[in-house]
């Protein structure tokens, strides 16, 4: 088991967004979370990665987490290369290792040609590719993705799923917030978040 979520509860004022949410994740499996807008999917992910504190419950993680937030969170006045280097420093990745990983991700998601461009000058789709690549930079063992393909063209969307399946085969556990019904069959297990509870 790589992630254990136990009895998580979170309220915003009188609005109880999460009520006793519990689940576990094992390596080499692809999990999906579905639910209506405002059902608490992003809140749950933010609690798992430590951005927000739950009102109650426990989270245990046994491995490196990679997190791709729903909104693009990049330094807009830095170039693509500089953003990658800054986050590599956060992950403590050695220089040679960083060069090899970032080159490979830039090649795979096809944004190498923009490496010297400032993020502010790039399209939303390209920004989202970088947003995702940063979550993958340190070869995470647990990958938490909040609607990671927003703005992707069809080719990149397909490549994303191929990459996710490769990671799963290498032992990575992946949790994806998804909206499309057609995506449900891609997952090994799907959690439905309804009225703050997982079903």
């Amino acid at each position, binding site marked *: 088991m790589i992630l254990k979520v136990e009895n998580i509860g979170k309220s915003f004022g009188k609005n109880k967004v999460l009520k006793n949410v519990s689940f576990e994740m094992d390596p080499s499996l692809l999990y999906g979370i579905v639910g209506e807008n405002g059902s608490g999917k992003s809140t749950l992910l933010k609690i798992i*990665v*430590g*951005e*927000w*504190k739950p009102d109650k419950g426990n*989270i245990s993680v046994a491995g490196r*987490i990679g*997190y791709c*937030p729903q*909104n693009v*969170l*990049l*330094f807009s*006045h*830095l170039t693509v290369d*500089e953003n990658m*280097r*800054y*986050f590599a*420093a*956060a*992950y*403590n990745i050695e220089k040679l290792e960083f060069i090899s990983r970032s080159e490979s991700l830039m090649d795979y998601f096809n944004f190498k040609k923009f490496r010297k461009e*400032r993020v502010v000058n790039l399209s939303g789709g390209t920004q989202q590719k970088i947003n995702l690549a*940063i979550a993958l930079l*340190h070869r995470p063992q647990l990958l938490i993705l909040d609607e990671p393909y927003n703005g992707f063209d069809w080719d990149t969307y397909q490549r994303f799923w191929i990459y996710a399946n490769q990671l799963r085969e290498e032992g990575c556990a992946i949790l994806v917030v998804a909206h499309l019904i057609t995506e449900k069959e891609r997952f090994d297990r799907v959690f439905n978040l309804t009225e703050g509870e997982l079903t």
Partner: protein
Amino acid sequence: MKAMRIITALSMILKMLLRRRIIIISLLVLPFVFLTIVELTAPTRFIPFRLASLDVRVFIRESLKEIALVFFSVTSSGFLVSLLALNLVQIENEVNRRLVICGYHPFDLLISNLLALLLVILTIAVYIGLLINEFVAVRHLPMFIFGLMLIGFVYGCYGLTIGSLIKGKLEGVFFIVLLANIDAGWLQNPMYYAEAHNNEIIRYLPAYFPSQSAIIAAFTDYSGANARFYSILYGTGFLILALLIFYNKMRIKK
């Protein structure tokens, strides 16, 4: 590795600062515009005035124009550094949070921001110090520049505190402008201070010690050591507050 992280963060912060054109323009143009307006409008009449941190029997006699020029150079130094400090911690707050989630320690980020701020303080103080020297013959220029650095330090740390505390950009700017305007831009003016009631209140405001230090160096041969010491103490107080708020907001919450 920790030092490497701080160096990386510092270089990225400086790149981001230098790439915002409005910041460079503000740094270069605003002090020059302020001082030119004062030069063109202030009267040249000589008046005697007393400095709060010197002995009550010490009177200084200078022209109103020179006093205004020195005073506005102190004000603009504090104001500019404060706004930049606010910008440093506030504008990329969410992305900094992601860096922390990815492994940066909040203190590493704050130390990098602080180092960037110190470079900004030094640059602004030297620039304004050299600029004012073209308008007024300042008596002890190095000490005067150090006084400008002190107002930068106190107001910069105030900016860091406000930036760590307040999420909204507009609200942050409002708090900076409010204090800088009332304190550094009005109450600490030696002309106003001399006639003020309850001037003990003014002594507790952040710009008091740094302005005293700069004005003493500009017009007298007296030592401003006390004012310099208390300025550092005041700025350190704001810095500790900023550190605590920033750490509490940025840390991983489990």
